Structures are given as C-alpha cells and as structure tokens.
C-alpha cells in the first residue's frame, strides 16, 4: 500500500506533464485544430488519459497492489475533472486555426483558379495586390487593397465581392491529418457533455453531470485490466491506446448508429439512460463499457504467477 501511495504524486506529476506537453505541441502547431483558448480544454482529457496509461504501464513491473491503485486513480481522475470544471472549460465550439506566421511581401501565392500577388501585408490587409484569375479575361486585376478574412476563408475585394482562399497556398486554412481533426472533434463532443462553467453547489444539484463525471473517471481508472490484458506490455499499450481513442468516439458512433437500429431499441435505451443516468445515451454506453472492464478485472488471473514464471526463466543460466 505504501508503494502504491508513492505512485500518486508521480501520477499527478505525469498528468500535468503530459497535459503540458500536449498543450505545447498544440500551441506550436498554431492551434491548427482549435482556437488557442480552447486548447487547454482539448488537451486536458488526453493528458489525463495518457498520464494514467503511462503510470499503469510502469506500475506493472513495480509490483503494486491494484486493489488500492485503481480506486486511487479513480479519485485522482475525478479530482482532475472536477478541478477542470471549476476552473471552467471554455466553450470548445468553433474550430479556429491561426494563419501561417508570415507577413507576405512581394509574394505570389499560387492557387488553382486564382492566385494573388501581395506587394505588402499589414495585418490582414494586403496592399497593392494583383489578383490572377486563371480562367478569366483579362487574367490580371490590380486592387490597391484586399482584405483577408481568415476565419471565413475568403479574400474581400472592396466593391467586387469575395474570392475563396481554399486553394491558395499560404492563405488556405491548413488542417491537420484527418486522424487528428477527427480526434479533436470527438473530444469537443465529450467536452460538451461536461458543464461549461459551474459552481460546486450547482454541480452537486445536477445528477446528470455527476453521473457523467463519475462514469468518465471510472472509465479512465479502469484501463488497468487492459494494461495487463496480455503478458506483452507493448501489445497492452497498443490495445489501451486504441481503447483510449475509442472512448471519446462513443457519442459520435452512437449518433451515427442510432438511426440504423430498430426503433424499440433506441427508445428503450433512451428511457433506460434517462432513468439510470440523467445524461445523454452515450454516458450509459460508457457505463456499460466500464462495467465490462470491471468484470474483466475481477476475472483476470493474478499477476503473481507470470512474475514468478519470468523470474524462473530469466534466472536460468
């Protein structure tokens, strides 16, 4: 128990460290997937999850007693989540990325149907530009000033309307690889299930939020049976990471699968979910998964035997 207790500060440290690292990575990529103020909220859950997984992976070889480790992790996760809510997750709504960190001067930005020559850039204002419309006659159009609306992805030409920048290199909204953007979208959906800004008293008075918090913390803490699923830690790591990726996707998967299911099933499920957890159906699905993990853990063989076996193997000459 003492050894397990010692892991606690390490766990907290790792969560903070990994959250910080993810945040640094997200800031360095100029928040291509979210506005900077939303990044904290977005990296918070992955940081917590990764911190727990890394701690569990190392704990396996450290001979800790899981019966004390898992509940402690549950408490730490819940504490982190509540703290996050009390600090207040900003509304992670609109994905806003930041433009390329360059001010263009005397630069031709090429595009498929439209290119633009920018003589000088001042903020989001381009001075003495020449618009090159590759499919129009004449091709070149001089505009003393054009305005770049990054968020809507258009160039505003005074008196002439707008031109899309979707295909103009350097002006397009760069999006990361689809795996990353999809993950961010999923995380955003999960964040919407949590209260945006709430006082402790109101939090206690809303059972839906409490259920969501508990189920989420439970799921995070219960990755333990997966981390020791096989006797090959690398494979366990892969499986757990896959699992960690699946969790935030559950609300989306439910939304896309629900219309395909028979009516009676979805209505029963909805009824059941409002009865058991006054929260969206995804929370009930999470609960089911958490229970499945709990069952898996209960029936898992003890760690003592493989350890003994390995010791025997490695001690042989």
């Amino acid at each position, binding site marked *: 128990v003492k050894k397990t207790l010692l892991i606690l500060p390490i766990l907290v440290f790792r969560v903070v460290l990994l959250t910080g690292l993810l945040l640094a990575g997200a800031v360095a990529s100029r928040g291509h997937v979210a506005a900077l103020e939303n990044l904290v909220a977005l990296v918070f859950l992955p940081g917590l999850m990764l911190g727990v997984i890394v701690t569990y992976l190392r704990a396996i070889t450290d001979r800790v007693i899981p019966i004390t480790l898992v509940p402690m992790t549950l408490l730490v996760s819940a504490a982190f989540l509540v703290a996050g809510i009390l600090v207040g997750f900003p509304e992670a709504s609109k994905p806003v990325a930041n433009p390329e960190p360059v001010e263009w001067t005397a630069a031709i930005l090429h595009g498929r149907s439209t290119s633009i020559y920018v003589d000088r850039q001042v903020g989001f204002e381009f001075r003495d530009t020449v618009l090159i419309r590759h499919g129009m006659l004449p091709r070149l159009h001089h505009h003393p000033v054009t305005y770049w609306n990054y968020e809507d992805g258009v160039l505003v030409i005074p008196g002439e309307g707008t031109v899309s920048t979707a295909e103009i*290199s*350097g002006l397009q909204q760069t999006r990361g690889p689809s*795996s*990353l953007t999809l993950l961010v979208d999923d995380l955003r959906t999960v964040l919407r299930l949590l209260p945006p800004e709430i006082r402790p008293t109101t939090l206690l008075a809303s059972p839906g939020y409490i259920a969501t918090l508990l189920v989420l913390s439970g799921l995070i803490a219960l990755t333990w049976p997966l981390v020791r699923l*096989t006797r090959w830690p690398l494979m366990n790591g892969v499986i757990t990471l896959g699992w960690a990726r699946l969790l935030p996707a559950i609300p989306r998967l439910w939304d896309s699968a629900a219309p395909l299911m028979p009516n009676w099933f979805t209505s029963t499920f909805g009824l059941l979910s409002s009865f058991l957890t006054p929260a969206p159906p995804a929370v009930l699905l999470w609960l089911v998964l958490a229970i499945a993990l709990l069952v898996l853990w209960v029936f898992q063989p003890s760690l003592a035997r493989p350890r003994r076996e390995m010791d025997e193997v490695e001690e042989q000459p």
Partner: protein
Amino acid sequence: VSVGRVFSMILAALVVILLGWAFLRGSVRLSAIPAGSTLTMQYTAMLVRAALIVFFEFLVVIVAIAGLVTFSLAASPRMLARSGDTFSAAMRPLLYTIVAMGIVNGLWFGLIAPRVESRLAQYAHRKHVAEVALQEAERLMELGMYSGAEEHLELYSSLEGESERSIDLLREAREGRTAREQEFRNQLQRVPDTPVTRAVEVEQMTVIDLIRIAREYLEDGDYFSAHHFATLAVEQSRTPRRDARIIQAEAFNAIERGSLARDEGEARELYAAKIAAYEAYQRGATIPEKAVEAYYRFQELEKRIPTDPDVQRFTPRALERVREISVFVEDARNNHVLPGRSNLVFLNERHADWYELVSVDKLVRVRDGDFLYGIEVIRVAPGSDRSPFLHLRAPYGKVISGYGHGALDQVILRAVSRDGSAVERGAAVVRPEFFAGDGAELEGGLTLRHTVDEIARLGGGTRALSLLSLGELIYLPAQLERLGQPVYFARVELLTRLFRIIGFFVLSIGSIAVGWRFRSRYPGRPPGGVFLIMPVVPWLAWRVIEVGRFTFATIAGNLVTLTSLTTTFVLVTISMFLLVIFTVFSLLRQKLS
C-alpha cells in the same frame, strides 16, 4: 540465432511486403501516363523510380515496426546475452546497420529523391508530348497537311523511337508531300524562265568587297542587288563612303527608270511590286511593321515569279528579319497542343516605386524555341492613382535570346501569319491588346529579367519544391525571391527534409528502446489470440508518424519566421542531434534482464 539476424529477417520480410506495395502504387502512378509499351526497359526503369519514392516514404515505418516487434517479441535476454555481455554491447552491430540505413535515407531525401522526381516528371512530359504529336499528325494527315504532319511525326520518333504506326504515317506523309511538291513544280514550269544571276553572300565581307560587288552588279544591270550591297557598304562603313553612296543613288535611279522602261501590263506591274517590296525591306531594318510588310510582299512575288533572282535573294532575307521581330501564328498554334507548363506567374521587375508582374497561360519548350501563350503584363506603381500604368495581353509570344554576354532574353509579342492571311480580327498581324498604357517603353518586346529555365521551373508555385535537392533549397531562396515566389515554403520544405533525415535515427533507435522496455513476458511464444491484434501495430505506428510529421511541419513553419534561415537551420540540426543522442542513451540504458 543472434538478435541481429532476427531483426534482419523481420526487416527483410517487411521490405518485401513494402516493395510489393510500392511497385503496385508505382504502377498506378505510371498508369496515368500514356505509355507506348509497358514492357520496355524505359518503363521498367521508371517503375523502379516510382516504387522507390513510395518505398522511402514508408521505410522509417517498417524499420520502426521491425525494431518494436524484434525487441518486444522475438528477442529474449538470453538471445541478447549471446551477442554481448551488456545490452549496449549486444546492440552495437545493430546500431551500425541503422546508421548505414539512416545515411541512405538521408541521401535519398536530400539528394536522390528530387532527381528521381524530376526524371519521372520529364518522362511523363515526354510521353504526353509524344502522344499529342502522334494524334496531331494523324489529324493533319486527314486534313491533307502533309508537311505539318511530317514535323509532328519526326518529333514523335525523336522522343519515342520509331513504331510501326509512326513509320507508316511518316511514309504516307512524305509521299503526300512529294506529290504536292511535284504538282507545285508542274505549275511553276508554266511561268516563263528568266536568267538567274549569281548569288553572293554578304557575311564576312569588308566594305571594299561590298562596294566592289555593288559596282559589278550595277555594271551587270542587276540594280536591286547593286543598291542592296551599296546600302550595306554605307551602313557598315565607319566613315562616309562617297563611292558607295554614288552607286546607291545610281542603282536607285536605274530601278526607277526600269519601272518606266518596262512595257505596259503585267511586267510593269510586277516590277512596281518588286520595288515596293524592296523599299519595305530597306525600311524594315528600323521599322518592324515594314519588315513584316516586306516579308508579305516577297511572299506574294515568290508565288508569281519564283525564278526572279531578286525575289530569290530577298525572300529568305525578309523571312529572317521577320522571324527576329515576330512569331508566326501558325508555328505558335502548331505547338500549342503540345504539353508544357501552365499558369506561370512571376515578378519580372520590382523597384522602389513600381513593379512588373507577368502571367503566362502556357509555356511550351520545343526545338524551334520557347513559345508562350496568353502573356499578360501589368505594371503597378504602389500607392499611385494611375495604377496600373501598363497592362497588356498578347495571345502569342516567343523567346529570343539576347546577344552578347549577360544579355537578357526578350519575348516577342507580335505574331504574324506565315502567308499574310487574316488570323485574328481580320488582320494578318496580331498585336498585344492594351488595357492600360500604350507600351511605348516595351519597344516591341518584353525583356525577361530571368531565364526561361527559372520561370519554367519556379513560376508554377510550390509544387516545384519537391524537385529541389537539399543544397538547392539552401541556395535557391534568393532566386525565388527575385521571381516573387515566397521563400517561406522553400524553408519549410528544407526543415521538413531535415526532420525526415534525422528523425529516421530517432524513430528507428527509439523503437528498439520502447520494444525492449515493453517486451513480452511470456516464457515462450504468446498465445495465438495476441497475434490477431498484431496488424494494429503498423496502423498505429503510421498514425503516430503522420501526426508527428504534421506537428513538425507546423513547428518548422513557425521556426523559419522567428529567425534567419541559417540560425534556424543550425538550431534545428543541433536539437535533432540532441534528440538522437537522447534516444541512443535511452536505448543503451536498458538492461539485459
């Protein structure tokens, strides 16, 4: 079995799988290119190139997977102990292999890949040109334009060698052309013959020679030639030559007299036409429009009196002169179908108070020269009310090289039809259309401040960057800047390549450390169920690398704007090497058991 051998075996198996896939992807890529025959050596060489590009793209992934699988599943402490007393000693031969592979990977991304990419691009371009040339030849044959078809077929066989189809077509085209020429000769025989006087070439002649020849012509009664040579003598001489001027005047008087002396009717009319053509030719030396007029007049005369010595002498000269100042619409149109670089935009000049931007719809480079289509030029004075002060569009242009060392190329913007027939808006001469200004300062041609090579290579945007080697990416930015192409993208590309080259070591060595740290604790082989999840490993490895590459690319984008390129380059290289050292240490820190 040593751990090195296990690693090599797993890697070899993965290499075979990757190569198979790479060849598949390569053949898909090549299938977009019209191929003559898929069994040729050339096709095979290109397929190997296309496959290598895919292979190296994923090499780091398979090395990482091999490291992970070998050290987490296949290798046991006992196996490693056989290779050395400590973990680091057991690792040494493997590290040498990884370093060797890393160097190959570095050479590939830094030097070889851009060359291979450009070879593939050239190959695709040549195949497209050949295909279009053959199609165009067939079309021209149907229209009965045999000499045009012959040109296209010759272009085809110079690119693709001879095929049965092209040999047949070429024979048909030659027969057609010969028949046409025979027909033309038969018509000519009906025109009465006049004696042909000797032709003399003026190149390399001194003023004295020219005057002597002019005098001889004058005595022989060949007044046009006498006048021509006397004029040349006057032009070439540095001091005023009275004798040359006298011959010039006498010859001109004789020409005028000759016009009166002729009989009424056709002969007189022909002689007047010859004078007009000759006058236009003389004035064409300074006035481009007159040169074009002279060319058309001599063309007309050649049809009527092909054996006239004056016509024979001056028609080629008029052609030569018109070629220097204009492009033939027919040539331009013939070459338009050929593939080239399209939508090129570049900054031609930029000064403190004005800049000149040029857009070219298409650039076709053929043996005859570099043809430009849809050239648009705009000159803007920033902050001025009367901007743009010049804006023109020319449908055709041709690049003529400047004379002398360091001379700039010129783009001729005047296009004329070969036979004087109307080509555009009822006129035989196509001039640029002016939207602003009158182009007086252009003097008939646009001076290019860059070589056609640079424009073709870099004027099309960022897609050209993958064709540049690491060295070029370091030294080219100044050139890019002059062309108005953003240097930013080249710098990001440079850093991204560095990440790829040095990142190879981090990923391959790190994968071994991670694999060993989380190795299988099964006493023997894991149960079959575990292997079912194995395919997730490459998928996950690829996803992680993909997200990593994206993050590094964006970090590179930020870095290049913070400081100068040299500082960034040094900083990135040092920090990447530190990362490599850190990874090596984390590997060597591992214990045997």
